[in-house]
């Protein structure tokens, strides 16, 4: 029943759980050693990781429709967060309903393995349909601003995230364990890079890259993250992906660079609107958008990288 690819996905998941156990032990030890310090935020963060990893593990082990439904739900939460956060026009309330409708459709194309539709549905059809629907309502005040805001949200939360789902059906057998391996590879490296950039930044970060957007992002953190993420990609790619050694290394650095930009782009949006977090769905992390910020960039770029070279 389980082929070798699925075995490697399960072993990597087991290692991830091992890391979580270590993290939980560290948090517990910190609490005991320094009872005066407040570790609530850190403890919440780790606990949320347990939940997220478990949900993901269930989704990619079940595969097929369940995994797609899981990613569609992430898109839904992210879009809802976006639309609750950005200013929208009262006149466009029903247009927002159409925005939500794009989620089941976009994931239906993934389910059908219909690449042609998947890749143009939001960039072309949703792009044309939203202003069409808006113009029928007739409100022209702030029309351009609204049309752009809504489409940008769809691209960010539905289009990019659905690339992660398309990885599942990318291998020719359709929804094979290899697809699950690709998803795990992308997610692990993206999230690892976030953590690595943070840690390297704390250790040897001095010169800021974009101080006006994200004062915590430093060259030290960025380069440290780039190197460690590429190294991890080198180790993981033969286990989880068909990538050759050089391509694995390249994929790792691609994810590190793209992840950095996804992170700061969402930061810029939050600064523009004037909020610290996009939501509060994930205790200790903020909203779903705060968690998948890097992924909005890494998912489509990694997808096209591997599709061009291997599928």
């Amino acid at each position: 029943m389980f082929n070798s690819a699925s075995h490697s996905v399960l072993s990597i998941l087991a290692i991830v759980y091992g890391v979580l156990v270590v993290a939980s032990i560290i948090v517990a030890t910190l609490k005991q050693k320094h009872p005066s310090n407040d570790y609530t935020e850190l403890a919440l963060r780790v606990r949320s990781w347990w939940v997220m990893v478990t949900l993901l593990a269930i989704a990619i082990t079940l595969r097929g429709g369940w995994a797609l439904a899981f990613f569609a739900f992430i898109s839904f939460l992210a879009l809802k967060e976006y639309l609750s956060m950005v200013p929208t026009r009262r006149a466009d309330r029903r247009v927002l309903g159409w925005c939500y409708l794009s989620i089941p459709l976009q994931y239906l194309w993934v389910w059908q393995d219909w690449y042609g539709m998947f890749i143009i549905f939001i960039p072309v059809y949703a792009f044309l349909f939203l202003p069409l629907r808006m113009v029928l309502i007739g409100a022209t005040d702030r029309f351009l601003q609204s049309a752009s805001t809504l489409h940008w949200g769809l691209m960010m939360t539905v289009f990019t995230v659905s690339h992660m789902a398309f990885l599942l059906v990318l291998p020719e057998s359709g929804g094979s364990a290899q697809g699950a391996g690709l998803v795990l590879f992308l997610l692990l490296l993206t999230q690892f890079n976030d953590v690595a950039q943070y840690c390297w930044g704390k250790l040897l970060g001095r010169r800021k890259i974009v101080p006006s957007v994200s004062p915590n992002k430093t060259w030290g953190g960025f380069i440290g993250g780039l190197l460690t993420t590429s190294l991890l990609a080198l180790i993981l790619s033969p286990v989880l992906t068909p990538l050759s050694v050089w391509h694995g290394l390249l994929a790792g650095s691609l994810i590190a660079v793209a992840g950095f930009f996804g992170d700061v782009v969402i930061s810029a949006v939050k600064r523009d609107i004037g909020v610290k977090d996009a939501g509060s769905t994930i205790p200790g992390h903020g909203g779903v958008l705060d968690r998948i910020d890097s992924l909005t960039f890494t998912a489509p770029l990694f997808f096209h990288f591997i599709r061009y070279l291997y599928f």
Partner: protein
Amino acid sequence: MITKLLRLIFIGVINRLFVLLVIGLNVRNRQRLPDSGPAIIVANHNSHLDTLALISLLPLRRLNDIQAVAAADYFLRNRIVAWFALKIIGILPIRRTTGRDDPLAGCKEALDQGKILLLFPEGSRGAPEQRAKFKTGIARLAEAYPEVPITPVFMHGLGKALPKGEIIFVPFFCDIFVGENLSWQGDRRQYMASLVTAIENLAKEGQFSTWD
């Protein structure tokens, strides 16, 4: 018996799943909500969903004690709506038009029985995400029941999700900020003023822009 079971399924399962997965609440200071009656929760009102969202935050074992004060002329307008409002949601119908007898008699009776009342002093959902003037019935209840805890709550977002006059629901996250209990201070006008201030201060925690 069957309606009780239906109510349990609707409030305990369907409503909770809907609120959790489709709406999504961001609740601040949930621990300030009462966990037993008699108690009154006072909130601003923008949508039918306000009641459902608030009920989902109260303990299920108190289900039989929860009553949302609602307009009789609106919710008892036909038999199906009336059945759903009375038996499934569990509203306490009151008449909005002033008559000879005390419109608050039902509320007082419920408080005597130890119920948790949900009360929307605006009296109507009104324009979405805008607060109308509070009616003063709550001050009279506070005066009559000075020992009953009254908890002010500010809600934002559901007026966008399902405003008055719309039948199509559009998902939005909903913020619910719970304030500290507001006790009776000896004067109705003063009580109303401090209630309005309490809700306004809660609203300021969220930096919400106007919706137009």
